[in-house]
Each structure stands twice: as structure tokens, then as C-alpha cells.
């Protein structure tokens, strides 16, 4: 009788000490961690590498990879929203850094502030200031970027340009002056794909016409969409569209890139995942088989977009998620993930030897250029604006009227709370 009581007491003491030790030092994590994303197919291996790294660091945690594929994230976002509304958030989910996260989840009070994590890990100096501004609001920093893609890149094949005796245009005016000659030769001056790639082209044209400061002012509601500068951007965009391929809406972005590779088109404006496609899928050599430059008129500006992960309020395994986020921001994880994904590290101290020629040049620009945020990929505008911008684009494509598009965009900006 007595011995058993002693035994019980000892067990309790030991357990208590174990618990204390657990909070003081870092006891091994256990339980589960559910990661929600739309990364499958080409991007699957990169995510898998991150998960493997996490499992190596925290062998006690079982990682659940919840991927919802298709529709460039449309399906995943719909599933995520029903889960969040139903009070069943995943531990961490993939989201485009910036307003796509802020406008939907941060204003709704569904995300935890990560400022402490940023301070503790020294990320406030490891990430460029321009990026931190885009990730934060006055009330906090909301997600950890795992990669950086560039939106404003012009792709071409150097040998083809030499054959056609064409130079890489530095401005859209230059492009418009060389395009008619190309068109006369039966070459499509600018290859274009399905609808979102049209908006993608628009943001490069608008950035060129407005410049970085006015582009920012537009998203802060300080510059009206009806201002002459923005209407002018739509006008330039209309002229550029005249030199694109007729069958654009039926082509994927890969097929548009193919047109450049096959010599059917001279240029293509696409995000730098195109480099990954050409280098990995088509086995082309960066710099020799394909070349790149900043989209015309946007030299010195890096229009970025980023996939990031945050910490939802009520995440079932909060400690495990914090460990996941801590790992994502580390140099090791970023340099594991990005060479596979075909993007650059968000950190300014990444190990460039692990990256190919294109990514090295992009990483150099990332450290030196001014940083602007992408519209189409969720950095500068909330989801409401992004969704309705498709309608604005539709109005422009049907009417080809810059004023009509500018008016519609202003109305959308007011409804979405960007402009007053």
C-alpha cells in the first residue's frame, strides 16, 4: 500500500519535471502539422523537400500535406475559405504575401502577428526592407515568404533577335517602333496566353508608364485610376496588344513561351517561372538558348510576388507551426526550396552557388533593385479587387476604350476599399 503511494508520488514528480523542462528548453515537438497548399505537379518536389527538412529537424511531428490542386489556386482557396468559416483552420496555409493575405485574413482577425518571430530570428535585416513593407500592416507582420518570383521579365531567344536584327527594347516606345517590322515578317512581336497572362502583361506596362512611386501611390489610394497617367497606361497597353497573337486566350502561358522558343514570336512578358519551365522542362541553357531583361521601361524595379505561410488564429498545433515558420525563414530551407521551385530566396544572404544562371542574375537584382508589388499575384490589392479586375480587363478587351477601363477600375477600387 505505502510503496504504491510512494511510486505514484515519484511518477508525478518526474512528470512535473519533464513538463518544466519542456517549457524551458526545447523538448522534442510531437503531434501533427497540417500544411495546406496548391503545390502539386512541377512544384510538388520543392514542397516535399521542405517537408523532409522539417521531419529531419522534428522527427516527432507527423506532417500532413494537404494539397488541393487545380485552377492556379482557385480551388485551394475555395476549400480553405470553407474550412476557415467552418472553424477548422489548417496549421499553416500557402498564400500570396501581401494584400491577398491582409485583405482577406488579417482584416478578419484570423492571423497571428509574427513580429516577435521576425525580431527573434533576425529577419528584419535578412529580408529587404521593401519586402517587409509589403508584408506588414501597422499592426504587425503576417507571413513568412518562402520564395520570390519576379513578374516583370521580358523573354527572348538571343540568336533569333540577331537573325531578325532586332535589339531588346528598353521602353515600350522602342518596342512599338520595332514591332511593325517583325509583324511584316510574319513573326508575332509579343506572345501572349490566356486571360490572366493579359493582366500580367498589363501590370508590366502600367509599372513602366507610371514608375515605381506612382504605382505605389495607386495602391495606397493616393493616385486616381482616372488620372491621365493611368489612362495613358491603358492606352499604351492597347497599342501593345495589337502586336500580340490572335489565339492568345486559348494558349497556356507555357504555350506562349513555346512560341518564343520555336521562333514564332520575338518576345514574351511572363513571370520568372518561365525560366524554370525553359531550363528544366525544355532543357534550354539560360543565357544562351534563352535571354531575359526587365520588361520594357521597368529596368531597376523588381516587381515581386511571393508565396508565404502564416499562423492562423486557432491553429491546432501552434508550437509545431511556429517551428515550421522558423524553418521556412532560415537560409537552409530557402536554399533548399528555391533552386527546385525556380525562384530566388527572399533573404539577401542566400548561397548563390546553388542557383542557375538566371536565378543568380535575379537574386542580384533582388538585392539591388527597388521593389514593387504585383497586382495579379496578390501583393498590392485585396482579393475583391483582383477578382473584379478581371471584369475591368473584360470591359477593356471588348471596348478597347482606355477611359471606360479607367472608370471601371476606379469604381472597383472604391468598392474594394483601395480608393476613396
Amino acid at each position, binding site marked *: 500500500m505505502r510503496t504504491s503511494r510512494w511510486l505514484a508520488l515519484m511518477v508525478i514528480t518526474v512528470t512535473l519535471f519533464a513538463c518544466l523542462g519542456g517549457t524551458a528548453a526545447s523538448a522534442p515537438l510531437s503531434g501533427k502539422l497540417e500544411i495546406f497548399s496548391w503545390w502539386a505537379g512541377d512544384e510538388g518536389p520543392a514542397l516535399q523537400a521542405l517537408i523532409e527538412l522539417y521531419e529531419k529537424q522534428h522527427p516527432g511531428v507527423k506532417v500532413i500535406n494537404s494539397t488541393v490542386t487545380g*485552377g492556379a489556386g*482557385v480551388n485551394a*482557396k*475555395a476549400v480553405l*475559405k470553407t474550412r*476557415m*468559416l467552418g*472553424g477548422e483552420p489548417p496549421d499553416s496555409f500557402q498564400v500570396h504575401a501581401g494584400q491577398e493575405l491582409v485583405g*482577406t*485574413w488579417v*482584416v*478578419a*482577425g*484570423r492571423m497571428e502577428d509574427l513580429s516577435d518571430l521576425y525580431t527573434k530570428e533576425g529577419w528584419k535585416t535578412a529580408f529587404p526592407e521593401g519586402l517587409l513593407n509589403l508584408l506588414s500592416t501597422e499592426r504587425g507582420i503576417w507571413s513568412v515568404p518562402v520564395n520570390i518570383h519576379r513578374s516583370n521579365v521580358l523573354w527572348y531567344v538571343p540568336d533569333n533577335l540577331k537573325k531578325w536584327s532586332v535589339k531588346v527594347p528598353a521602353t515600350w516606345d522602342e518596342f512599338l517602333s520595332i514591332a511593325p517590322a517583325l509583324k511584316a515578317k510574319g513573326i508575332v512581336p509579343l506572345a501572349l496566353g*490566356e*486571360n*490572366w497572362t493579359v493582366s500580367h502583361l498589363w501590370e508590366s506596362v502600367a509599372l513602366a508608364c507610371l514608375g515605381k512611386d506612382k504605382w505605389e501611390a495607386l495602391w495606397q489610394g493616393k493616385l486616381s485610376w482616372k488620372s491621365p497617367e493611368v489612362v495613358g497606361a491603358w492606352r499604351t497597353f492597347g497599342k501593345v496588344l495589337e502586336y500580340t497573337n*490572335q*489565339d*492568345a*486566350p*486559348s494558349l497556356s502561358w507555357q504555350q506562349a513561351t513555346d512560341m518564343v522558343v520555336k521562333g514564332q514570336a520575338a518576345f514574351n512578358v511572363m513571370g520568372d517561372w518561365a525560366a524554370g519551365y525553359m531550363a528544366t522542362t525544355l532543357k534550354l541553357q539560360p543565357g544562351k538558348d534563352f535571354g531575359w531583361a526587365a520588361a520594357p521601361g521597368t529596368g531597376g524595379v523588381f516587381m515581386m510576388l511571393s508565396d508565404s505561410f502564416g499562423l492562423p488564429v486557432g491553429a491546432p498545433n501552434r508550437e509545431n507551426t511556429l517551428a515550421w515558420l522558423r524553418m521556412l525563414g532560415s537560409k537552409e530551407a530557402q536554399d533548399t526550396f528555391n533552386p527546385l521551385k525556380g525562384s530566388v530566396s527572399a533573404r539577401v544572404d542566400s548561397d548563390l552557388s546553388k542557383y542557375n544562371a538566371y536565378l543568380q542574375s535575379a537574386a542580384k537584382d533582388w538585392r539591388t533593385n527597388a521593389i514593387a508589388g504585383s497586382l495579379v499575384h496578390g501583393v498590392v490589392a485585396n*482579393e*475583391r479587387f*483582383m*477578382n*473584379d479586375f*478581371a*471584369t475591368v480587363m*473584360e*470591359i477593356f*478587351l*471588348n471596348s478597347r476604350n482606355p477611359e471606360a477601363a479607367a472608370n*471601371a477600375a476606379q*469604381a*472597383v477600387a472604391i*468598392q474594394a*476599399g483601395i480608393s476613396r
Partner: protein
Amino acid sequence: MRSRRDQVMAVLVIMPSLALLAIFVYGFIGQTVYMSLTDWGQGAALALKPEIHFVGTRNYAELFTGFLNVRFRQDLVSMVFFTILFVGASLALGLFLATIIDQRIRGEAVFRTIFLFPMSLSFIVTGTIWRWLLQPRGGVNVLPSLVGLPPAGFLWLSSREQALQFNWQVLPHYVVLGAAFVLIAWGVWSAARRRFRTSALVGLPGMALLAWAVTGGAARLQLLPFPEAHGFNLALVGVVIAATWQMSGYTMALYLAGLRTIPDELREAARVDGASPLQVYRYVELPLLAPITWSAIIILGHIALKIFDLVFAMAGPDNAPTSVPAILMFLTTFRGNELAKGASIAAILLVVVSILIVPYLVTSFRAGRA
């Protein structure tokens, strides 16, 4: 004679499914309709306790008259054209196939299976196959080059051309005109059956509406302050082809079943009376197939009005020329976070489908009682 115990049993047995239906179908329909009358979708729409205000029918007014909702109006028009073309084509092809197979040809079962087979695929599979076939630079468009002609260049799923364009502003005028004619026709029909009270009750308002429309009163009901052209998007032709390919076999099966239930005595009697085979088909078989046609219209019609997956797989969510309200509802709700507006589109879809289905339910209910 039913005993009281049987009746109690019947009610008890039916209660669970009734309760489930009440909650999961009618309850949620009610909730959606309520949501459509609010402003859910402003600011922090996805908060745990979002701020929601009752705004009445503002969302509906916005959809039909707001200049930013041009895509909704075009989608509605597209849905109507798609439904008419798809149902029409499926019926025609289905009847044609059924008639041929009904000739007791050899290997009938094989053909029947072949024609019915596409129906066993999901719309996602059909959509993916046809997206490949309708690529502008491949598939169907290169067929002419097999016989030495230049390849066709039609943009099957992304053409911006429109046929049968009309101005959205004139819509109220024609709706009033149409309603007037329906009411007057109903009045005349009742009068012919000596139901004079009904005739007056519907006929007189019909005349009033007609007068209002003819004097130009209805035309002053402006939905928009500027003209807005809508029409039949030629890009939908590809979707119609794919949908017809999938569903015409099913229509054939319906018609075939109908043809097989026509007693041979009727055909023989007609032949004895000297009818040619064509006359037997035209005056005996076709009229007896009318109920099949009605069922087929209901079944195909509600599929067409709610079509989502086929278009999503064939052209993606953002291809405006092939978009339909169901896709717009999905994007508005789950991408744009405008939950109230999405609910309004859902409610409108429900009303449109009800217009098709309710008369059918009423007639079959009456037939059941008689």
C-alpha cells in the same frame, strides 16, 4: 382500408428524410436567400463574426443594372443560348439515333452501347478531351488539311464574336410585351373553354400591359443609362458540341424506350389503313413520343442551366466568352469574397431552374392524383 397504425408508421418512417430535407435543402436555400439580401462581403467578410447588414434587394438591382456587373448579364444571356442550343441539338440527335436503331438493324446492342457510352464519363473528362480537340492550332481545326485545304482558324473557346446581339436597355420592353402576349393568349384559351372569370382576370391585365408596352411606357423602364450589347457568344459553340456529344446518347436511350413502348397494334392498324412508313412515323410514333420529349427537356434543361464543371474543365474559370452564371457565382463567392452577391446569383439560378421544373412537377402531380 388503411389502419390508423399504418398511418402512424408511415409518418414515422417518412419523418427522418423529411427532417433532413428540411434542414439540408430547404433550410440552406432559405439561408442563401437571406444572405443574398445582406451586404456580407464588405471588409472583414471572413471574420469569425462578420458584420452583416440587411440591405434588401440591393444586390439584385446591382446585378441587373450596375455597370460593373456586365459579366453577370452576359453570363445570363449565354446560359439561355447554351440551354436552347444544347437541349435542341441533343433532342434532334437523340431522336435521329433512336429512330435509326429502332429499325431493328443488326448489332443494335453494340450501337446502343456505343452511343450511350459518353454518358458514363464525367463532364470533367469530357471537358478535358474536348479542350484538346478544340485547340485552335490542333484537333478539329487541322481536319481540313487532311484533304489539302488550309487549316481552319476558328477560336473555338475564346472567340469574342457575338451573333444575335441586342441592347440590354430594350429588355424590359420585350419582357413586358412577352408577358402581355402570354396573358392574352391564356385569356383567349380560357374564354374558348367558357371560363370567363379566369379569362377576364388574366386577359384584362394582359391588354393593359400590351397598351403600356405599345405606347412606349415600358421602354422608359431603363435598366442602364447607356446601351450595352449582349448576344450569343460564338465561343459557346464548342461547349454546346461537347455537351451534346455527352448527352445525346442518353436522349437516344429515352426515345428508344419510348418507341419500344408503342404497341405494335397501333402501327399495324395504321398500315392496314394504308399509311406509308413515313406516315406511320410522323402521325403515330412522333405524337406518342411527346411525353418523352417533355421529360428530356426537363432533364437536359436543368443540367444546362446549372452547367459548371464542363465549362470549368474546357475553358477555365476566367474565360469570359464561355462563362455562365454558375462559374461567376463560384468566383464571386470564393475568390472575390463577395458572399452576398454570390448568394444573389445562386438565388437567381434557383428561380430560373424552378421556372423550368415547377410546371413539370405541377402537371405530374395532377396526373398522379387523377
